[in-house]
């Protein structure tokens, strides 16, 4: 019985997405409209769970699903599409 419960828990946890984070330094992000632009663009991407934006630190933390990935080129492309500029990507 105990084995069955553990096996069930492992089964469900393995199907649960665990976020992994990528931190992006962004130039030109000075106001909430800027931050909202980045949110709108990134949250349309498959695999992007959430965005944590800090105007103070000038960073966007991209939280991805466990099985998702996003290349640096794609990040640059999305930042530029939103109207801003990537200053660095930390994985």
């Amino acid at each position, binding site marked *: 019985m105990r084995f069955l419960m553990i096996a069930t828990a492992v089964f469900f946890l393995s199907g649960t997405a665990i976020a992994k984070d990528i931190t992006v330094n962004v130039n030109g992000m000075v106001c909430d409209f800027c931050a*909202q632009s980045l949110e709108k663009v990134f949250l349309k991407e498959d695999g992007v769970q959430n965005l944590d934006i800090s105007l*103070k630190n000038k960073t966007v933390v991209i939280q991805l699903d466990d099985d998702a990935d996003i290349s640096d080129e794609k990040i640059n492309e999305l930042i530029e599409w939103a109207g801003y500029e990537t200053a660095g990507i930390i994985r």
Partner: protein
Amino acid sequence: MINGDGDGILKTTMNKILLFFLILAPFAAEARPVSYPGGWTVMMQNSGDMHSIHTHYSPSAKYSIGLRNEYDRRDDFQNHSIQLNNLVKRWNNPDSQANFYLKSGIGYAIKKGNSDQSPSAFTGIAADWENRRYFVSYENRYVHANDITDDFHQSGRIGFAPYIGDFGDLHTWLMLQIDHHPEANNDDHLTVTPLLRLFYDTHLLETGINDNNDVLFNYIKRF
């Protein structure tokens, strides 16, 4: 009320302030006319000169297209236009951002009481620079509609944030706007408007009162 020498001193001071704007802010917009890709924006502006509502859609972060409906209180006419806003250049810096826009439109102007109607066109530039503490902007607009109007207007702003909020906070700005209407009468030629800007989530609200006691009230909502 200021008369005689006082009036002269005031005008000289205001001219100096205008010159300051024109020199300091040659690349300096009262509100960004382009949103994020796929974004809709409604901009309502009310002042002693004009009431306007501008609704636009941004296919990309480089340009937006929309409708502008305005009532010019000075020349007493309505102007309904299709407006195109182009972000010509953006400078993204680590701690600041600057923008240069071209804003143009074509439409139809109607004098009050339908006494005169005419095709209309306008064009102008807008520029701004801001970091999280300071803001500077400049914009101008030339409007022509045959016998109804032939008007040039320019304005500049400086702004200061008394505190610096982060994403999601209420942002507060204290600003000073100077409007220059070369063709206006002496009282309206140059006006100064201290104003308060409140910015929260997707809402931006501005209110102030100028030295002719005209109330300014602007509201912008992004979708």
